């Protein structure tokens, strides 16, 4: 178990700047997700921790010690890859045991450790099979066992579940989280799936074109995305242009209150669908264009004059139907302005 610290980490591939000025700290035992669209630099950052890529500049500290001069085979990290993870010519046992055997451990000890690791990932009794005889999910579990058996200080996972089907993905996610909690191992998990990041991580680093846009707990990231990019990337968000005039924000025909923190005349207003409420007649007149039943609630597409389409989430008790006309208002919204973001509640 270890802490990890990035210091001004940069990585350039020729003229392409894949990672820019990475600066954050991972605490001992924490579960961190690097989240972002493809090409945002999240995998490159992970591969620099593992040692597969050399940083152009900057440093990575593990428990306060720089590790960047260490080759990958000497680093106390273990990686789980997206696909082609297992060596196809080795049995499950041999795959997991390979790293231990390289360390010249006693055979009995290797066997015990491998069996314990396989049991941990729920694959007891599969040790004699070849990777080709396993399902995709089982293969990824073996890969996790192979990483864990070396008792690394940090476990790195590069989109390990993204080639599995949705149902299996959720199950493996739950299992991984419980294993991580059980062992208390510092874990860094790369994904482009926001749902995966929100459900797994203690803290999420949202990355965009090489930068970390926001590094916070899932709750904070969801409730107060620090930039428009994060707002658009995490969850569903209604975004509107607005004018800041005379102490009020004007969007379309409507006005919303502002506060002292908001600067500049042109701002953006972001509203989560679940923050929309059916209001008294004083609200924004809306017409229901479409209703989708999502089980516990309705996802509703509203048409609002001068604003256009707006997504809202209403409880089942609201009984809305297509064609209904009523008033709505947000009970909470974010204002993105020149100097940052303000959260305003009505």
């Amino acid at each position: 178990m270890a802490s990890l610290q990035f210091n001004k980490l940069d990585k350039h591939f020729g003229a392409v700047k894949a990672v820019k000025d990475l600066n954050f700290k991972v605490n001992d035992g924490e579960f961190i997700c690097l989240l972002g669209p493809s090409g945002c630099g999240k995998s490159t950052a992970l591969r620099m921790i593992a040692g597969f890529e050399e940083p152009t500049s900057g440093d990575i500290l593990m428990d306060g010690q720089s590790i960047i001069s260490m080759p990958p085979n000497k680093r106390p990290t273990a990686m789980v890859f997206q696909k082609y993870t297992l060596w196809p010519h080795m049995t499950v046992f041999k795959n997991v045991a390979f790293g231990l055997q390289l360390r010249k451990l006693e055979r009995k000890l290797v066997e015990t450790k491998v069996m314990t690791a396989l049991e941990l990932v729920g694959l007891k009794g599969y040790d004699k099979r070849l990777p080709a005889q396993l399902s995709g999910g089982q293969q990824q579990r073996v890969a996790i066992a192979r990483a864990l058996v070396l008792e690394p200080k940090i476990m790195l996972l590069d989109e390990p579940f993204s080639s599995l089907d949705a149902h299996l993905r959720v199950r493996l996610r739950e299992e991984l989280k419980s294993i991580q909690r059980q062992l208390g191992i510092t874990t860094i998990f790369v994904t482009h799936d926001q749902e995966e990041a929100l459900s797994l991580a203690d803290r999420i680093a949202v990355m965009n074109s090489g930068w970390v846009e926001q590094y916070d707990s899932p709750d904070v990231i969801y409730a107060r995305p620090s930039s428009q990019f994060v707002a658009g990337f995490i969850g569903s968000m209604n975004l509107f242009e607005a004018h800041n005039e005379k102490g009020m924000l004007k969007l379309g025909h409507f006005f919303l209150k502002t506060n002292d923190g908001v600067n500049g005349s042109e701002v953006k207003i972001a509203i989560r669908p679940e923050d929309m409420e059916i209001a008294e007649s004083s609200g924004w007149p809306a017409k229901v264009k479409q209703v989708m039943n999502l089980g516990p609630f309705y996802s509703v597409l509203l048409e609002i004059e001068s604003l256009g389409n707006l997504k809202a989430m209403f409880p089942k008790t609201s009984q809305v139907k297509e064609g209904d006309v009523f008033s709505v208002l947000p009970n909470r919204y974010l204002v993105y302005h020149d100097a940052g973001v303000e959260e305003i509640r009505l």
Partner: protein
Amino acid sequence: MSTSTLTKKEQSRTKSNWIAYLLISAPFFLMVLLIVYPASLSIIRTLRPEVNGTRRFGLENYLAFFSDHTSVTNLVFTLWSTGAIIALLFIICLPIALYLRFTESRIAHFVQGLALFPLFVPGIILAYALIRFIGPNGLLETFIEVTTGWQGYHTPYLKPSGSIIGLVWEGIPITVLVLTAGLAQVPDNLIEAARDVGAGRLQIFFQIILPLIGRSMLIAFALNFLGVIGAFTLPYLLGPAAPQMMGPFMQRTFYNVLNPDAAETQAVITFLLSSFVGFLYVRSAVRQQKEEA
């Protein structure tokens, strides 16, 4: 249901069947006529030697071959050369293929170009070029003498090493081609995963890469084995007059000694020697095809 009520689909299916067999018949029969028929006929004929004017089954032809000192020497020499050539090819081509697979250097393009270049040099031209290069008073000897003043150069021309050098030269492109094709199918992840759990370069090579390119190694081995055993031009022009490799030996028996029966026996012996390798080659090619389909 009677045959006259075939559905339209079934009718077109049978028709296309018939056409397909017609289309493939010409090359197939040519192949049978020029390969399967002569090869099997020779195997049978050499097993039915002519004794006192009548043919009957017997091993006389083979006994004659194996009791003839020259024949046995040539056979052993051929096998020895084949082993040496294949060993050299792997020693030369594996590092090249590994380099081409894992480097990001621009030199790789030039290395690849050089390694494939012999594909475009016919054997007959190569033979001539090598004589002028490594032969007595050739470019290499002059070069060594002019630059170092050393006069101890012994030419490999008309020695066993002469044909070995020629056949290695000729074998480089296909070996590099097959090995790089095999290495290209090894995903980066598998190698990185091995580095990640602590494997060094040698361990990765022997425990991960080699087992994964086993089939390519086998195909490279088989193609070179069959190519060398069945070679004529280079050993004929660059190798020694005695011992001879099987190619020139058969040609001499057939054309100069005018003994087709003995030449046929020699040919069948090369078949038998390489039958297992030929089988391995066909089997791995068949598997490759099936996996792609």
